[in-house]
């Protein structure tokens, strides 16, 4: 028995060794481009460093950041953006996926239309929407004028700019999430639906009792992607508003970029990066820790 165990252990050690060897190339890159920078950024966040001067200040920079109006505003914007765009775009994605999953005429055309925004680079999208949102002679205002409505200054009014951004982001993201749902829907077992069919179950009940629970693993995945994505959006701000007016559309990642490459304040930028990493980590832990237990795989 003991010999057997030893044998097993030796065997598994060898097996593991092989696995590690196979993983090594990826691990090297992960270490060099993800883990090392993370350690470095945590280290830098304790140093006040600007323009070549660098000295240790402990957690002073963290204190300063948490008392900074701009940071608090940016954080608030980012949370609002996540709270609004994530549920809407995920629900919309599920709705679209169920729609195009049915065998109706022109499905592939509709699928392509829904997925299309995902294929366009963010920079191009931002430029297109910059024109859509142009006051008076932009596409949206021209359309509203037909209905006799005078549109606001979409990107120039602090109470509208974030809403305008949300509209654009939902349009862009929903198609992307739809693809995950579509894949999920197509892998669902047919038998359950056939059984429901025999029992004469109505479509809504079918969705609530069968489709939605069975698609939960996909939903979890999409939620994680969607929420973390909403903290990683930056390209469009650079093109459309530069975070303005008066930081009303500024988001965390753009704030980090500005702090690092416009203010050259690497210490504060590192602090902000650590905070962003913490937020992303908490989101993943929450989702996987809480939702995961309630999902049937």
């Amino acid at each position, binding site marked *: 028995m003991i010999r057997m165990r030893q044998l097993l252990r030796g065997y598994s050690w060898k097996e593991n060794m092989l696995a590690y060897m196979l993983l090594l190339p990826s691990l090297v890159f992960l270490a060099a481009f993800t883990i090392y920078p993370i350690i470095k950024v945590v280290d830098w966040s304790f140093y006040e460093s*600007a*323009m*070549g001067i660098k000295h240790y200040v402990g957690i002073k920079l963290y204190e300063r950041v948490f008392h900074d109006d*701009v940071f608090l505003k940016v954080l608030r914007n980012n949370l609002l953006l996540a709270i609004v765009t994530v549920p809407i775009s995920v629900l919309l994605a599920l709705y679209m996926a169920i729609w195009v999953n049915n065998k109706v005429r022109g499905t592939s055309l509709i699928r392509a239309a829904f997925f299309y925004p995902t294929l366009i680079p963010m920079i191009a999208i931002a430029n297109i929407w910059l024109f859509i949102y*142009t*006051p*008076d*002679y932009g596409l949206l205002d021209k359309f509203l004028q037909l209905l006799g409505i*005078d549109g606001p*200054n979409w*990107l*120039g*009014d*602090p109470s509208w700019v974030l809403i305008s951004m949300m509209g654009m982001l939902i349009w862009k993201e929903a198609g992307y999430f739809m693809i995950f749902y579509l894949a999920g829907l197509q892998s669902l077992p047919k038998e359950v639906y056939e059984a429901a069919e025999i029992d004469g179950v109505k479509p809504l009940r079918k969705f609530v009792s069968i489709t939605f629970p069975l698609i939960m693993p996909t939903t979890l995945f999409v939620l994680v992607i969607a929420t973390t994505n909403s903290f*990683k959006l*930056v*390209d469009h701000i650079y093109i459309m*508003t*530069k975070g*303005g*007016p*008066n*930081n009303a559309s500024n988001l965390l*990642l753009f704030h980090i*970029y*500005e702090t690092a*490459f*416009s*203010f*050259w*304040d690497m210490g504060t930028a590192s602090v902000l990066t650590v905070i962003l990493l913490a937020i992303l980590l908490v989101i993943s832990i929450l989702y996987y820790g809480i939702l995961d237990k309630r999902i049937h795989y």
Partner: protein
Amino acid sequence: MKKLGILLVALTFALTACGSKDDSNTNDSTKTTGTEASTTKDTTSADSEKTTDTATASDKPVNLNFYFPVAVGGPITGLIDKLAADFNKENPNITVTPTYAGNYQDTMTKVVTAVQGGNSPDLAVLLSTELYSLLDMNALEELTPKFPQTYFDGFYEAFMGNTKSGDQVWSVPFQRSTIVLYYNKDMFKAAGLDPEKAPTTWEELRQDAAKLTLKDSKGAISQWGIEIPSTGYQYWMLQALSLQSGANIVSNDGTEVYFNKPEVKEALQFYSDLGRTDKVMPEGVLEWATVPSDFISGKTAMMFHTTGNLTKVKTDAKFDFGVAYLPANKSFGSPTGGGNLYVFKDIPDDHKAAALKFIEFLTQPERVAQWSIDTGYVGTTKAAYETDLLKNYVAQFPQAAIARDQMQYASSELSTHQNGQITKLFNDNIQAALLGTMTAEDALTKSQQQADDILKPFKK
């Protein structure tokens, strides 16, 4: 952001590659004079030692790394390449390799990354306002002793402002601009105004703008009197209005700002009143890039904008337009803007000598004239406007002379230590005042307080 990261990594690799190539060049041609070379050099091969001993400075091949941004429309990269090729014809031993580095901000990022990585470029075109950031990094070569005083005197005084910290000169004016008033002559005629007489005072500006603001049958405004942009460069616009009221907002050593002076308050009040009280300018924030489109498409009758857009407006506008001085409150006034040529410190001496030669080449009157015609930037030297080239151009297109004539009233642009941060906070507060979420007074008091905190360590 991810894409940006990849770009940065790729760039770092590219820079390291360039850097090592440069180093080998340097070894072949270390010092300026033969005797100096033989004393300072010890370990290079006998072969190259022989060449350095016999050759004079100008015979040794030098390869200059030159970073430049593109900030206005037009085939700038082609023009720069041609300048480099022409220079090489005159100086066969110096090859300038121009590197297009994106917009001003991108170029600054690349230069700083390169400097901090020890692979500093030889020279670069960067915003004139980056002076103190570059000085704080100890990246620049001082130019005061490199040129005779008469050379610097040849430039317009207002352009020299941003090249200096106190009395030391650190850069040379290259692609410079300033703010002017553009106005639509056809609309002036339609409103019963004299199309040859642009408003010269704030009061006239108000009155003309009111006459030029038109409503359609439903009462919605179909044409605005004036637009002053308020994204990205609102600090620049406010600085213009402050100068017209008789005060500049920055000291000449970059350690002090005067945001809370009464003149600045008057300027900000005027800026926000145009939209909020007089209703002759659209309310809220006006996008920098949209304002010229609004002017060209006839949505506004007048605009404040950079001379950098002169060529674009000239090509695209389907109506007769005029260019004028910015109207005066107490006096005329406008800040300068744009980019200067910087030489870096951490490069070999023969590269420095070659870089200075290239700068001298670029600032010869004929070349400044041609550059101004091709790009729309203001000619930086008085001599350039004496050339036949520019004289003829101005005769055909008199709008081009306005910026030059306004130079006598111009001052240097806001530039301080921690310039990015100061500009950003000032910009944010100006927007808050324009949007009405803060009074002009509060916005400026807050700006001053925040700026003082940031600048405290730099005051001696």
